């Protein structure tokens, strides 16, 4: 199935059902379908061809959704880009995926200056993308695309994730990958047309994309609010729009529990919440459920490389299995393989390896990286886990040394590469340190040479070269970095206490 056919199908079955709520705007399925048709025609008029990449640099909005499906309908590949990135970071991604067009708005246009020829930039708020003026060419149909229309295995999206090498990797997901995973998620969350989800997670991450694909496929409603900085505003939206679902990473739940008026809200329409993006303390889940006992709390686990989801914990088992990521989702298979490549015994630690229609095609422009994780046994996730007597899976550790801060995965190597480019820095190491709200905050240990610079100089340099969420919260100047005999930095030593100070 092609992913945009799910929109067509929902528009056919529920044309007047509200698909998206954003600020004062409410678009029904028929409108989203027609607007994205019109955009697809616009792209075809501009000469887009099957497999061309179209980058999306937009906050979550109705425009994002229209653009996303318009790109797919034109047979092109949607590449959502993180709107928090600075110019240097965007330049790398644009160079890597070489998009035919970038769809953005006036607010984000300036950052593209010098990175891409302006004639390839389409502005949603300046009439470049049709708004309520559906194309005279009428409805999109496969015939209009001529030959070479996309197939189920065709590339639909590239989602960038932080790579272990410090360079982001483009995860290639096909129509089939995304559709199959959306089906599985709809099944275990029991999503129906009557459901509506509070969307605070950005669509440019896999978790956000999965909210989009599942709800459009289910004929349900997406309620977008990008103001989670002020959680009470989002809680008001949840009450007002009577949402039935909420999705967040642990830091979102920490903020709701510690820094919002959650206890004053009843949220009687809220049926369930989902949590992914790292381990959440069982005590926090319990506290959340004490405030809202009528909810089903779904703990989930996955990877961008798996189109989003691999396992979930059925809420029925939550009280007995706190700390577990549950069992495999429908239509996916999982093995825990020990170092010998054999299935791990109960209690034995091994790597999670997954197979299914949701597993990515590979990494964009990175055959070698792809062959490291996509092997004959399936997708090697790099996550270590064990299984208990009842078959429930528990994550033990991640093989990759990613820092998990809020909803972001941050490669320490990327920060280190940038900081080492600063004059006067001999070497440095970035590590995650525990943070009550974010899960992890970034600590940067820096070894200076004779050049004198201050912490503020260093932070200014970081600010110019790194997105705000990659900024170190703690900087420590040290005389040297602790290393193993093979010269590898002992990161675990840097996360606790202080190392001998440098000058």
């Amino acid at each position, binding site marked *: 199935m092609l992913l945009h056919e799910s929109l067509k199908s929902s528009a056919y079955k529920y044309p007047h059902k509200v698909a998206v709520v954003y600020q004062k705007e409410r678009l029904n399925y028929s409108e989203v379908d027609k607007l994205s048709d019109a955009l697809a025609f616009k792209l075809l008029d501009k000469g887009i061809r099957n497999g061309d990449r179209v980058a999306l640099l937009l906050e979550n909005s109705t425009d994002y959704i229209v653009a996303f499906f318009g790109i797919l309908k034109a047979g092109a590949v949607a590449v959502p880009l993180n709107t928090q990135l600075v110019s240097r970071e965007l330049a790398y991604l644009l160079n890597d995926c070489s998009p035919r067009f970038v769809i953005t708005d006036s607010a984000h246009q300036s950052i593209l200056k010098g990175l891409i020829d302006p004639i390839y930039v389409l502005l949603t708020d300046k009439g470049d993308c049709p708004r309520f003026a559906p194309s005279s060419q009428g409805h999109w149909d496969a015939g209009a695309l001529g030959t070479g229309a996309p197939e189920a295995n065709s590339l639909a999206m590239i989602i960038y994730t932080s790579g272990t090498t410090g360079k982001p990797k483009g995860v290639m997901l096909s129509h089939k990958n995304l559709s199959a995973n959306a089906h599985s998620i709809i099944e275990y969350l029991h999503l129906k047309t009557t459901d509506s989800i509070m969307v605070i997670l950005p669509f440019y991450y896999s978790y956000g994309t999965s909210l989009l694909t599942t709800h459009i496929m289910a004929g349900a409603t997406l309620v977008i609010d990008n*103001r989670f*900085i*002020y959680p*009470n505003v989002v809680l008001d939206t949840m009450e007002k729009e009577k949402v039935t679902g909420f999705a967040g990473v642990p*830091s979102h739940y920490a903020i709701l529990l510690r*820094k919002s008026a959650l206890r004053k809200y009843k949220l009687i329409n809220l049926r369930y919440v989902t949590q992914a993006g790292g381990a959440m303390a069982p005590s926090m889940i319990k506290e959340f459920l004490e405030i809202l006992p009528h909810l089903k709390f779904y703990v989930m686990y996955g990877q961008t490389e798996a189109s989003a989801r691999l396992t979930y914990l059925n809420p029925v088992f939550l009280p007995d299995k706190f700390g577990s990521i549950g069992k495999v989702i429908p239509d996916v298979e999982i093995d825990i393989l020990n170092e010998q490549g054999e299935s791990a015994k109960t209690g034995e630690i091994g790597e999670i390896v997954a197979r299914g229609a949701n597993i990515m095609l590979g990494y964009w422009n990175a055959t070698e990286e792809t062959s490291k994780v996509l092997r004959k046994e399936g997708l090697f996730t790099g996550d270590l886990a064990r299984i208990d007597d009842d078959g429930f899976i528990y994550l033990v550790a991640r093989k990759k040394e990613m820092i998990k801060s809020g909803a972001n995965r941050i490669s320490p190597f990327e920060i280190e590469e940038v900081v080492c480019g600063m004059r006067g820095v001999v070497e440095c190491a970035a590590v995650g340190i525990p943070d009550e709200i974010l899960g992890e905050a970034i600590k940067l240990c820096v070894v200076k040479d004779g050049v004198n610079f201050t912490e503020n100089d260093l932070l200014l340099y970081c600010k110019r070269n790194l997105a705000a969420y990659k900024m170190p919260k703690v900087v420590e100047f040290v005389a040297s970095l602790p290393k193993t005999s093979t010269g590898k930095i002992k990161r675990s030593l840097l996360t606790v206490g202080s190392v001998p100070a440098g000058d």
Partner: protein
Amino acid sequence: MSQINELTEVDIKKKIKEFIKNNFLLGNDSNLQDDDSFMGKGIVDSTGILEVVSFTEETFGFKVADEELLPENLDSINNLTAFISNKKV
């Protein structure tokens, strides 16, 4: 902690600007207007706003209630100045 009742609105605004400049703008506030939205300008994130709250509580000596964590109270230099000034007794 300052005695909020002894501060004028001008004093309060000055302290706020100093804090925003040093904590979020690394000393350069040339592009920030008093009525610019912190959220709209991408100056603060979820944890940044919590730092604004801690600063407000410590500097002006009152507790910001969870229900008061709203853009109309916190989301610009002007909003924050008005919010704090209204706490005078």
